[in-house]
């Protein structure tokens, strides 16, 4: 954080799901429960997780790069998962320390 830089507060929704082809017993169980409730046309359910992340970055490129890092290092395991995200600007922030 350089002094005097106006950073922006971002809100990201990161979706992490299993790669195609990796068996998803939770999704299969939900699909079967839906069918047993009468939704007979349900052919597939894939489960996953949603993570909402609030953070600060100077611009969209920096925000995207940070999210890519977060996903690679922690949020998804590339052996069996894929992560996608949507990024929204929350508000400009004056979090900088004069400097």
């Amino acid at each position, binding site marked *: 954080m350089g002094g005097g830089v106006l950073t922006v507060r971002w809100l990201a929704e990161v979706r992490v799901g299993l790669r195609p082809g990796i068996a998803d*017993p939770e999704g299969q169980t939900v699909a079967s429960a839906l069918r047993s409730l009468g939704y007979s046309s349900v052919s597939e359910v894939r489960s996953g997780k949603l993570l909402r992340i609030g953070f600060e970055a100077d611009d969209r490129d920096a925000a995207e790069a940070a999210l890519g890092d977060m996903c690679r290092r*922690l949020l998804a*395991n590339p052996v069996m998962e894929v992560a996608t995200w949507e990024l929204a600007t929350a508000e400009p922030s004056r979090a900088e320390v004069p400097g």
Partner: protein
Amino acid sequence: MTLLAARPRIAVVVFPGTWSERDFAHVAESVLGWEADLVWHTDTDLRRPDAVVLPGGFAHGDHLRTGAIARFSPVMRSVADFAEAGGPVIGSCNGFQVLTEAGLLPGVLLRNDHLEYRCDWQWLRVERPSSSRAWLGDLADGEVIRLPISHGEGRYVADAETLDALESGGRVVLRYADEAGARTDAANPNGSERAIAGIVNERGNVLGLMPHPERAAEAEVGGTDGLRLFRSLEAWLREQPAAVERRL
């Protein structure tokens, strides 16, 4: 100085949520007369052990993925260095999950195919024990042993290329089987690919397995097959002057 004079010492890593550390320490100290050090996950000093144990449990609550957060605990840098130097490392259950997340073993462990937590005795076929003399030197190729399992996320998954490499490298060392040693769907408690229950790294010093050897070390609790992994380690250590001298 005789090598036989030294008592093996194990470092047992404890993350928030680990639950099998005392069982490992009990077997080491009370059953075998070894020394065991519990090492908190923020500690980076393993205190020169002969072997490192990553026990079972729910490190960091299993949040995000099993082992995903534990792999960033400060102690894991020291565990990786110890493994890199050829030191024997065993990860059982959650410890196996941590080893895969840390990249010390390939693949990943996912939710059991039936979604149930499974806590039971399990027959296992030993394969290629010569791939890990440190952990399996006391076991014979093809023999069937019985150890407890206790997990909800033990389904071993890796891509076909990785699985083939593990098999051709003799690195699949434990497979779920029936009492006769046959690999059947019914004997696979979690849907693991190719019934894989335990694998080793290329050098054979790092073993990851879903079963709990520390829970099968006294006849009073139902079996002693787990003790044979500890005995293997002790025999191997006695053949390694460097490992013993490190502590003298």
